[in-house]
Each structure stands twice: as C-alpha cells, then as structure tokens.
C-alpha cells in the first residue's frame, strides 16, 4: 500500500511534469504552465515546434557563452594569482563568431518562412466568419458556409455574468469559485455566447475593429490578428478536435481590455450544420415576428 501510494504520487507528478512541459494535457491555461500550448491546429503545432527549436538553440548558445564566462570567472581571478594577458584581437575568432550565428539564424529562418507562407494563404476556405472587436465585446457574423451565404446569423459575445460580478473592485467574490460545470476555473475566460465552429473545416476569419484596435487571440489556434477599424484582416484555422478553446483580447483597447475574452466551441461538422440551420430559422422567425409587430429595432443577439 505504502509503495503503491508513493508510486501513484510519483506517477501523478510525472504526468503533471510532462504536461507542464508539453502543454498537451490541458486545452486552457493551467496553474504553473511553463510553455506554449501545442494547440489543436497544424499551425499551432508547427508554431510550438518552432518555439521549441528556437528555445533549444538559445539554450545551447547560452550554455556555451555563460559556461565560458563562468569558467573565466573561476579560473582567471586575480586572487588566484591570474596574470592578465595582453592580446586584444583575433581576426579568425571574430570571423567564426560572425559567420556561425548567421548560419544558425538561417537554420531558424527557414522553417519560420515555410510556416509563414503556408499559414498566410486563406484561399479555399469552406466557411467565413466575420469577427468585429468592440469596446469591450466581440461580434461574430457567419458570412458563408459550404458555398452558401448564411442568412443573418450573428451575435455579440461578452464576458459571462459570474466573472463580471467577481471582477468588480472589492466585489468580495472569490475568483477561485468561478468554475464551469466540470469544475474548471474559467474566471475571465468565459463568455455568454461562444463562437461555434465545425472541426476539420478550413475557416476563414475576416477580422476588423468597430471602435479602437483589438486583437483576436486564441492560443490553441496558434495565432492572433489585430482587429483594426477601417481595415479587414484575414486569417484562417482548421481545428482538429472538438472542444472549448479560450483566449483573450491581446491589444490594449481601454478600461475593460482585460475583460473581453474569446471562447471558441468546436463541434463535429454535422452538429455544427444543425446548429447553424437552427440559428438561421430562429433569425427568420425573429424577423417575421418583428415585421408583425412593426417595431424596427436592430437585432443582434440571437445567440
């Protein structure tokens, strides 16, 4: 029993440690997370690899440079009787440490260029979503899906009520108690209406700003893109597995910049099509109801 207990704890610890380093066990930020998430797209995985490659290059160079420095600091102390030499240059050495870094940098620039060229291409998307940043909420409009224009499906997405109440100055509420149905803490990372998208489909995002500049960022997708008034930026993603992926606005946009999260709910394609059809008919019904009542109020929140 005792041994089992220890082994059990050790295993848990090992799993936790490997998860910390790989970032694969959690889809959302978790305590003591040290590294980028591997995410759920090809892009986010490639970015993770690039992140690790550049980090390892830095570690190796760091070991060499700092190692040399530490050896120098130990061996060439005056208190140990070291006598300074007089030399002050070496063309050969200087050429080496000019050329070698260039080669290393080319080694890093090559994969970076490849990833960038691939991820910039938004052509052949099966679906388009327009994302608009407002102070301090997001608006999602479904533009087209599978070659067909989507009719009037769009909604605002803002911080959920529980987080919003807790985040007020001196609210007296505990951020640790803001949890979802599974007990996962989603303080400041939850919204009233998530963006629902299908998995396995190339989705193009058209991203713009309604007032000031925002930035749409979901780490699990592997990128962020600024939402700028007057400019429509394009980006894309293809999510590989269903789940809920959380992010935040990443460009300072005023007092509630820290309080406009992003939640992407990725569902299987069939389920998404069902959802979209329901939204479309709800929009139709709503329009009909409005025409009947003859009250022309702009409708924007049929989540």
């Amino acid at each position, binding site marked *: 029993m005792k041994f089992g207990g220890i082994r059990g704890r050790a295993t848990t610890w090992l799993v936790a440690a490997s998860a910390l380093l790989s970032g694969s066990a959690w889809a959302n930020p978790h305590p003591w997370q040290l590294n980028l998430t591997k995410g759920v797209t090809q892009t986010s995985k490639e970015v993770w690899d690039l*992140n690790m490659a550049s980090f390892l290059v830095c570690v190796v160079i760091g070991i060499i440079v700092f190692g040399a420095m530490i050896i120098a600091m130990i061996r*060439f102390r005056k208190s140990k009787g070291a006598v300074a030499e007089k030399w002050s240059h070496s063309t050969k050495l200087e050429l080496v440490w000019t050329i070698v870094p260039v080669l290393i940098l080319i080694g890093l620039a090559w994969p970076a260029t490849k990833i960038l060229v691939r991820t910039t291409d938004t052509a052949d998307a099966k679906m388009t979503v327009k994302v608009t940043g407002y102070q301090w909420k997001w608006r999602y409009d479904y533009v087209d899906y599978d070659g067909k224009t989507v009719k009037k499906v769009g909604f605002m997405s803002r911080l959920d009520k529980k987080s919003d109440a807790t985040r007020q100055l001196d609210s007296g509420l505990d951020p640790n108690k803001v949890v979802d149905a599974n007990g996962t803490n989603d303080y400041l990372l939850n919204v009233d209406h998530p963006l629902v998208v299908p998995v396995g489909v190339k989705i193009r995002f058209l991203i713009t700003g309604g007032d000031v500049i925002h930035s749409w960022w979901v780490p699990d997708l592997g990128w962020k893109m600024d939402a700028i008034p007057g*400019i429509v930026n394009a980006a894309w993603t293809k999510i590989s597995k269903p789940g809920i992926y959380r992010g935040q606005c990443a460009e*300072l946009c005023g007092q509630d910049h820290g309080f406009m999260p992003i939640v992407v709910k990725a569902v299987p394609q069939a389920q998404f099509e069902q959802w979209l059809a329901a939204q479309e008919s709800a929009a139709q019904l709503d329009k009909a109801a409005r025409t009947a009542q003859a009250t022309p109020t702009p409708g924007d929140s049929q989540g």
Partner: protein
Amino acid sequence: MAHAATQDHHDDHHEAPKSFFRRWFMSTNHKDIGTLYLIFALLMFFIGGSMAMLIRAELFEPGLQLVQPYFFNELTTMHALVMIFGAIMPAFVGLGNWMIPLMVGAPDMALPRMNNMSFWLLPFAFTILLSSFFLPGGAPAGGWTMYPPLSIQGGDSIAFLIFFVHVSGISSIMGAINIIATILNMRAPGMDLLKMPIFVWTWLITAFLLIAVMPVLAGAVTMLLTDKYFGTSFFNAAGGGDPVLFQHVFWFFGHPEVYIMILPAFGIISEIIPTFSRKPLFGYKAMVYATASIAFLSFIVWAHHMFAVGLPLGAELFFMYATMLIAVPTGVKVFNWVTTMWKGSLTFETPMLFAVAFVILFTIGGFSGIMLALVPADFQYQDTYFVVAHFHYVLVTGAAFSIMAAVYYWLPKWSGNMYSERWGKIHFWLSVISVNVLFFPQHFLGLAGMPRRVPDYNVAFADFNMISSIGGFVFGATQLIFVGVIIHCVFFAKKKATDRVWEGSKGLEWTVPSPAPHHTFSVPPVIDDSQLAHGDVGH
C-alpha cells in the same frame, strides 16, 4: 600625470560659483549639469518605480483589490513614459555629460548654455506629464505607444502627453547635438576617432539616432494632436485615414529608441569589463563597427513590433530577416566581452558585478528577442507577458544595470570618496536575485497565454504573478540601498579615492584628481597611446 598637476593651479581662478542658485540653476559646467541629469533620473526612477509597485500590487492575486482598470491603464502608460524618457535616457545623458569631455580631453561640452537649457526643459516636461494625473479624466491611459484611435479617445491628457513629448524631444535633440559637437570638435590633439573610448563611440552613434528619430516622434504625435483637436483624419479610418500608419511612424521612431537606450549601456560595459579584467578590450574596432551596424539595422526593423497588424507576406518576411540579423553584431559584442575576460586577471568590485550580470541577463533578453523575431511564433508571443519579460530583461537588467554599474564605477571620481563596497555588493546581490524572481516567471505567464496590460487574470496565472510581485517588491525596496550608498559615499564616506581609483583603469578621466575639479583640461592633455581606454590602437 604631469598635466594633471598643472591643472590644479589653473583651477584656482574659477572655482564653482558659491551661490547655490547660480551653481545649480544657471550652470554651464558639464559636471554640474551631468550631476543634475543623474539626480533627475534617479528621482524619476523612483516615481516610475512606485507606479510599478502599484501595478505589481494589483497583480499580486486575481481579482481587483486596489485600483480601477482605467487607473491601472494610466499606471502602465505613465510607468513606461517616466522610465523611458525620465529615468533611462536622462541617466545616459548625465553620464555622457560628465564623462565625454573627461574622456576625450575637452574642457567642457561644446555648447554649454544649450546644455543648461536641454536639462532644464526636462523638469518642465515632466511637470506637464505628471500633472495630467490631476486632470479630469486622469492621465493618459492608452499605452505609452499612444496607438490611435484609443489614445485620442480619452480626455485632454493626450494634449499634455503630446506637449510633453515635444518638450522632452527638444531637450533630447539639443543634448544629442551637443554631444556630437563635443566629440567631433573638442577632442584633445592626438585623440583620433579610433582611439576614443567605446563609451564615447556608443554615445556618438546614439546621438545621431536621437537626432534622426525624435523629430519623427514629434511628427507622429502632432498628427495625433490635429486628429483630436483640428479635425484632420491622418489616423481616422472614417475620414479616409489609417490607424496603422501611426504605428509605422511611431515604431520608425520606437525601434531606434530601443537602441538609444542600450548602445550607451554597451559602451559602459565595454569600459568596465576591461578595467576589472586588467586586459585590453577584445576587438575594439569590431565593437565600433558592431555598434554602427546595430544603429543602421535599427532603422529597418520597425515593423517587427507590428507583425499582428496584418502586414503582407513580403513585409513580414523582410522584417523577420532584418530583425534576426541584429543578433549578429549583438552576438559579436557579447562574445567580445566574454573573450575580454578570458585570461584576464579578474576582480569583482561592485561595478564589475553589475557588468557581468548585465552580460548574462541582457543576453537572456536577446535570446527571447530572437524567438520574438520569428513571425509565426510571434503570433503567439505578441502582446503577452513574454514580451513584457523580454523588454524588461533588456531595459532593467540591461540599461538600468549598466547605469548602476556606471555610477559605482565613476562615483569615486565624481565625489572623491570610495563608496561602501560592502553595501554596494549587498545592493547588487539583492537586485540581481529579486530582478530575476520579478521578470523570469513572466516568460511562463506569457507562454501560458496571459496578455500584457491587463489588471486582472484567470486563476491559472495566479502563482507566477504572486512570485513576480514578491520579486518586484524586493527589487523596489533594494533600490533604497542604492540611494543610501550614494548619499553615504558623497557626504559621509571617510575613505578617499585615489586619482586612478581602480587598479586596471585606463583613459583620460583617471588622470585628473578625485574628485574631478570643477574645470578640467583647460589645457589639452598630452595623449599617451598606451594609457588610452582599452582599444587595441595598433589594429
């Protein structure tokens, strides 16, 4: 040295003015103005630092406990402006003022009255800036980068900020002109350009950067001003303008500005490491060329601050490659410092400790810089705490550590007294440990997904934020020791400094008495090549 002795007689004619007002307010003396700059920078370091303490206190745990989100944004904005324009830059100008004439054998700065004016603009500029806290609507809260439309959305504080930028910009430009004029015209006979100490070289190049980019910033903020008050639409999309244009213009200033804050630091470190290694600086010429290359490259990398604005592919690639290139000359510098120490005869007085910490910690900041340069990875890092960690490593353990190193290095020359080595070392060790506790965890926070400039965060980020805040409080408190050491050294220290001060010191500044008399080099010194700085003059 012979000329130092003649110097003493000469100085009897014109000592420092007796009247406090005449001496400190009407000064045209490079040493007194240098002192004013340094005191001003120290004051601003504490004002900006107290804002940082408040920021770290709010971020100590999740939930809002101390300040409203808008005031938090005022704090982050003002912290950056005060630290950049009030602490780091004036400290370097102060060091340049004090040391450049002493290092090139000039009696004073070339334009002494302008020197007075360029200093005295600063207190007014910062009064304007800091007074904005008391305006209705508060201080600027749109970030120190002032991106429109957000920056012109608030109250009239933006007008104060713009006027502040103009006044302090004029001060910087005048200071830069003065430094260039001094270095190019006032060198003692025999002090050729390639015999100048590296600190003088780095300041010469920095001064050109200042003259090139401060007017660009002035132009950018003036367009902001007319957009807000005079109905223009430079950056207003609704009027046909482009918000991204501001970012291009701003960062065309902003990136060289980054090097304005680090090149003089390179110069300082290149003075200190040879002194305490008792060995000439390795690759003097390579150091000069590397500095010049970094300065040139700084003009063609600005858009790496804007990878996520939606640049075309070609632009992303160009700015990625150009940015990565900067690692080459910067690497040359780091390798040269390490090689300078190699087979030297090392001692570790406080200036050397700070210099060694600079090399290691600045290099860590450089490493994260390389990671940030890779565009696809930057799409994850951009605007997160990873970036916050990166630029604090290069600016706090880089620029600020080099300034502390310089103060310990030259304080005996300025004051005539030795500082307390014991308390200097206590200051160093507490600083170097706490600064890493403060900033290293911020890498993890950024990678885990915490955006920058947020007053509150998910509980997943709580642990590292608490550690970071504790490091911050210790680092802040530790700086009081720094002030204590300086005050003790200047007013109370019993131990007198020798003229040489350090066993391995070379260069003209060590040939004048300690404390350096009010006027030095009224007669140009005779240059002895073997006693010059640390260059390998023959090559």
